[in-house]
Structure formats: C-alpha cells, structure tokens
C-alpha cells in the first residue's frame, strides 16, 4: 500500500543528492535529473561535500561507520528545501532509516527533519512538479524495472511508469514477475554471488522475453546489475536510468 504522503507545491529551490553510484558510475543520470528539474523552473543546489548516504555499511551491519558517514551528510542541507534523490534505495535509506540510525543521539531531530524532506526523483517529478513531457523520440517499446526500495520501502511502484506513460511514442511492456528483486541488494551480490546471479539471470530473461531492446530503472544498483548481466551475455538489450531516458527523449 502506498504510504499516505502530502506533497508540497512546486518549490523554487531544491537540493539534489546524487548518490555515490551515480557520482561514480552514472554521472549523466544525475545531470539529466538536474536538467529535468531545472526545465521545470526549479533552481537546483548540489551540495559539493556530498559523498554517500551510508547505506552499504548500514545494511552490512556496520552501523557506527554508517552513522559517521550519514552524520556528515546531514549537515549538507541547512535550508528547508526539498532534497531530491535519483535512487529509491538511497532515498529509502535517508527517509526511512536515518531516524532509526540516529535515534537517541544528538542528531536525531536533524535526521528526522532531513528525512521528511527526502523525495525520490520520479516521485518528485510526478507528485510535486506534475511533470508534462513532449516526446521527441522514435516510437519504441521499453521495459521498466522498479527497484525494491522504491517499490516497497518508499511505496513508489507507480511513479516511474506514470512518467513513461507521458511519453507519447513509448509503449511500456509488461515483464513476468515485475515485482521480483533483480538480485543486487548491495553487498548481497558479493556475499551470495551465485544466488544473486540466478536472480539477475531470471530478470534479464523476463525483460528479454518482452521483445524490447531497452529497459529503464530509477536505481543505479539495479541498472549496474541487470545491465551488467546483459552486457556479460553480449545481449543487445540496453539499460538506462529513467532520468536520462526522459531527458534524452524530450530535449
């Protein structure tokens, strides 16, 4: 069930939190997210000192390390503007887990305040910007993989498809077991590589079976995992972050 959340009117300014995977592996996705927001007339502030939300250590059980890193990030958003994150898992970490991570510490109030301002990018584009898109791309079919964090932790299974539906020439194809995890899970893919591999194999097969040559996702972990599997098999299916896909087709 989608959590009830009241959305603010479109603001003049937002913070953009790029996430470490975007920063290192998919920087264009981050920039495209920024461009989509700027095109809506929003001024985007990118705090220079942002690094990582702390999730990898948190889900591995290394809470002190996670807290130290998260604490350094809490200081980056002094103004009361929304914080837009192009990732369900980092967004979920900051919105859902920060309050628990800082419970009983001096930063608890700050963490809750920041958590209340976290928006995943597609969520923000749909519910705050009420984004309208003019599709300039050629007609094509595309599959969407919604990350488990976006789907279950943030309750955002609908926002990605809602954006794709605004592209006039794009047909969203249905894949088998769309809600099933792709097998990334951060360090899970390293700790249980064979199980993870079986999961991503099924995911790539399901996407391939739709006949599409393209899939989009709003999480770079899934993109790295699913896209990496397609590439390893030398399959012609291309993956893209949804921000890049939307920007590319409408600019």
């Amino acid at each position, binding site marked *: 069930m989608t959590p009830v959340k009241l959305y603010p009117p479109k603001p003049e300014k937002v913070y953009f939190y790029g996430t470490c995977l975007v920063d290192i592996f998919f*920087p264009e996705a981050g920039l495209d997210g920024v461009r989509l927001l700027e095109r809506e007339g929003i001024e985007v502030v990118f705090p220079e000192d942002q690094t990582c939300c702390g999730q990898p250590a948190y889900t591995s059980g290394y809470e002190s390390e996670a807290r130290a890193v998260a604490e350094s990030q809490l200081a980056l958003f002094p103004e009361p503007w929304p914080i837009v994150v192009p990732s369900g898992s980092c967004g979920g970490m900051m919105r859902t887990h920060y309050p628990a991570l800082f419970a009983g510490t001096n930063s608890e109030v700050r963490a809750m305040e920041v958590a209340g301002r976290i928006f995943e990018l597609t969520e923000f584009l749909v519910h705050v910007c009420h984004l309208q898109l003019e599709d300039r791309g050629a007609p094509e079919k595309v599959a969407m993989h919604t990350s*488990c964090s976006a789907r279950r932790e943030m309750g955002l299974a609908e926002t990605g498809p809602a954006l794709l539906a605004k592209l006039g020439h794009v047909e969203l194809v249905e894949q088998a077991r769309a*809600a099933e995890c792709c097998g990334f899970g951060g360090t899970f893919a390293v700790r249980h590589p064979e199980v993870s591999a079986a999961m991503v194999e099924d995911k790539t097969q399901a996407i391939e079976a739709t006949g599409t040559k393209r899939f989009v996702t709003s999480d770079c972990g899934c993109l790295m995992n699913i896209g990496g599997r397609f590439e390893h098999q030398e399959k012609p299916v291309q993956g893209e972050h949804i921000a890049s896909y939307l920007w590319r087709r409408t600019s």
Partner: protein
Amino acid sequence: MSVEIYTPQAFHRQAHDALGNPQIRGNFRKAMDGLMTKRRDIFNDWDLETLRELGANIRLRALAKLPDLLEQLEANCQANGIQMHWAEDGDQACRIIREICQARGAKSVIKGKSMVSEEMHLNAHLEEAGIEALESDLGEYLVQLNEQTPSHIIMPAIHLNTDEISDILHDKTGTERTRDVDYMTAAARQQLRERFMSADVGVSGVNFAVAETGTLCLVENEGNGRMTTTVPPVHIAVTGIEKVVEHLRDVAPLYALLTRSATGQHVTTYFNLINSPRKRGERDGPEEVHLVLVDNGRSSIYQDDELLDTLRCIRCGACMNHCPVYTRVGGHTYGTTYPGPIGSILMPHMLGLEATQDLPSASSLCGACGEVCPVKIPIPDLLVRLRKEAVGEGRGNVLGAGVKRNKKEVAAWKSWQWMATHPGAWRGGTAIAGKLQVMMPAKLGPWTDYRTMPKPAKTSLHALMKRHRQEKES
C-alpha cells in the same frame, strides 16, 4: 534419492548444489508462483491492510502480556482437565513427551504436523527410546519415508514433484508407480488410517493457544490433526510459548490471515478447537490431553524489544513463498528447521550466530517478506539487526554476537568511512577513475563471473555539476 544432512554452516555449498539442480529449481519456482498467485487472488475481497493491522496488534498485545497470559492459559487448561508441562529447551520437551508415553507403556506415536517437534528432533528422541513416531501429515509422511526433513513449514514436501513422490511411495511402501495423484493419496490414506487406529499416543502442534478459555486451536486440511487428537487414548500437544493469544475472539482474524497467507484458502478443511479430554458420556476423544509449552530460546528473544517482533510469527510461510532467495534455493539449503526469511531471523536465537552467520545476509533486503507478512513483522529490519549482531555492532543480546567480525572487513569499512567523510578526498577519488576499487567493500571477483565490471565514468557527477554550473553562469 540419497539421504543428505543439511546444516546452516554449509549454506553456500547447499545453495550451489540447489542452484545447479534443475529439478529442485523447477519444483520450487512452480510451487511458489502458484502460492503467490493464490494469495494475491484470495485477498481481493478483503481489506488486507486493515486485517494485517488487526493481526499485528493482536499478536503485539499477546506478547506484551505474555507471562500473564501463559499463567492464565495454564490455569484454564488445567481447569479443563488438560495436563500442563513446561520445557526450557527441546531436550527437556522431548523427555517430557517420552515420559508421558512411557507412563502409558506406549510403543507407537502418531503425529500431526508440528514444527516445534521438528525443532526439538522429537522423532529421533522417541526412536532412541524404542517408541516409533510416524508422521501423518501427507507431506511430513513423505519426507519421513524419504529420510528427509521438511523444506517448508506449511508444505513440507514441496521440493518433491509427482514423479519423485511416486518413486518414494513405491520404494518404501510398495505402491504401484503412477502419476495418478488420487491413487497415491488414497494409498497413503489407507496406510495412515491403520496407524491411527493402532497408535498409543497422538502428538500434535498448536496454531493458537487461547489463554481466556484454555483452548488449543489446530488448523489443517487433511484430517490428520483431528485423527491424531481424537483417536489415540492420549493426546500430547506441543507448542512454543509465543503461540498464546489472549481471547477466543482474537483467533478469527488470525485464522483468516493464516490460511489466506499460507495457501490462499478462505478456510481450511478442518479447524479444531480442543478444550479438554473426553468427558463422561462423550463417544470419542482421548482420555488424557497434555500441553507441553516449549521455550527453547524464545524468552531470550523476548528480552529484546526489537527482536521480540520475531515472536509475532503465526507460521504461515508467506515470507518463504515470496522470498526470491528461498524460491531459488529451496528450504533445505538453509539447513535449519525454519527456512527462509523467518528462519533467518529465528534460527540465530536457537542455534547461535556462529552456526547461522550466513543466514541473515542471505537476503537482498528486497522487502517482499515484510510486505506479505500477515502480522507485519519487520523482517528486513530484523535481518539488518542480526547482521549488526553478527559483526559485533548490536546490543550483544544474541548468542555468538560478533562472530562474523573480521579485521579485513572492518578495515575496508573504516577506509570507506574515511573517504566518505572527507569530501575533498572523495572528489579527488571519484575524479580519478581506476583508483576507485580501494573504496569497494569487497573484491569484485564473484560479480564479474556473471556481469561485466562496472566502469567508473570518466567524469564524476561532482565534476559534471561543476561544469554545468559554470556553463549556466557564463
């Protein structure tokens, strides 16, 4: 089919074997797809979230009053003529049951389905004492014939397909080889009927024990529970202490959640409410009814306000049915009585983290288990909590806390922490591709067996944003 002993320590090897076994993978995929569909379809006409909220609250209320409710249950059961026994661990529970059997000179025990009896290895214990224990749930009967343990808590033989079951029945009981399910069911029924009639003692589990009325509730589909609890002259019910609920009225919503979550049924074929032994003038029912309440690590879970949520579980198995890991590797891979997500948060308390350290990490934290749990156990959060315990970052309340902590991993996370809290160093690092691997938490070997190596981009987002800002300003 060979007899294999599965252990949680061998999770990785067992997962490797299961993943390489197309039979196992096919059986589980098909079964879990079916169960997921059935659950989804049956909750259509219900306000699922309202019912889950109610179920969770009933369980939380019962747990909040657990010591008092157990005393109330004891008093009311005794008033009804049920004899009460308390066991601190599985061994003690086995001894109690054996002594009850021996006091009646029992030679054969017929069993209804009971996961607690699996947990305490009751069958082996009774057999050592010269008492034969036969499983009467069809799935349990099949795995017992096959010298295996259950691979699922609701559907113990779900890892077997029709052909394998035909082989087992043929090899062990001499039935004809066939794919005719009705024939096989009828054959098993015939075999079990005779054993019900001749058994000295019936042992069953308990789904809900009602404190208010001293009632034992038993949910089942095959009638084996009803036969077990009414035909032999002695009925011994065995249950974990957490199965108690406060009121009789609490049972209806929990039952609705249990059957829908487990097998996608509105109701089961049988729902037994057991209040007492046979009363004067009654035509059936046992002469003696015993209830054995088993702790076996549960009260240590109870001490911790987070881990306590584990005890809400009503044993529906929905978390297994929806877990992408369980679906691929099957229940035996976990090597524990309770497999899947609930097993991964329950078994560390029973066996300690040293034995079970690979289980809490055997989840991608996709959240499917928490999403379907009928009593809203925050399973993903508890998995993370146990990961913390395993690396010595928790409260130290779990047996074997800290066992997984190793210097190499700590050093890796410390260096990651240093990078992520020194923005200048981070920007420098992200700007220089190739130097990034030092920040990775572990080697990428296993990753690249199945996927291409992720390539750090030539220009980081930090650098792109800097350029973007300059372009806008100029």
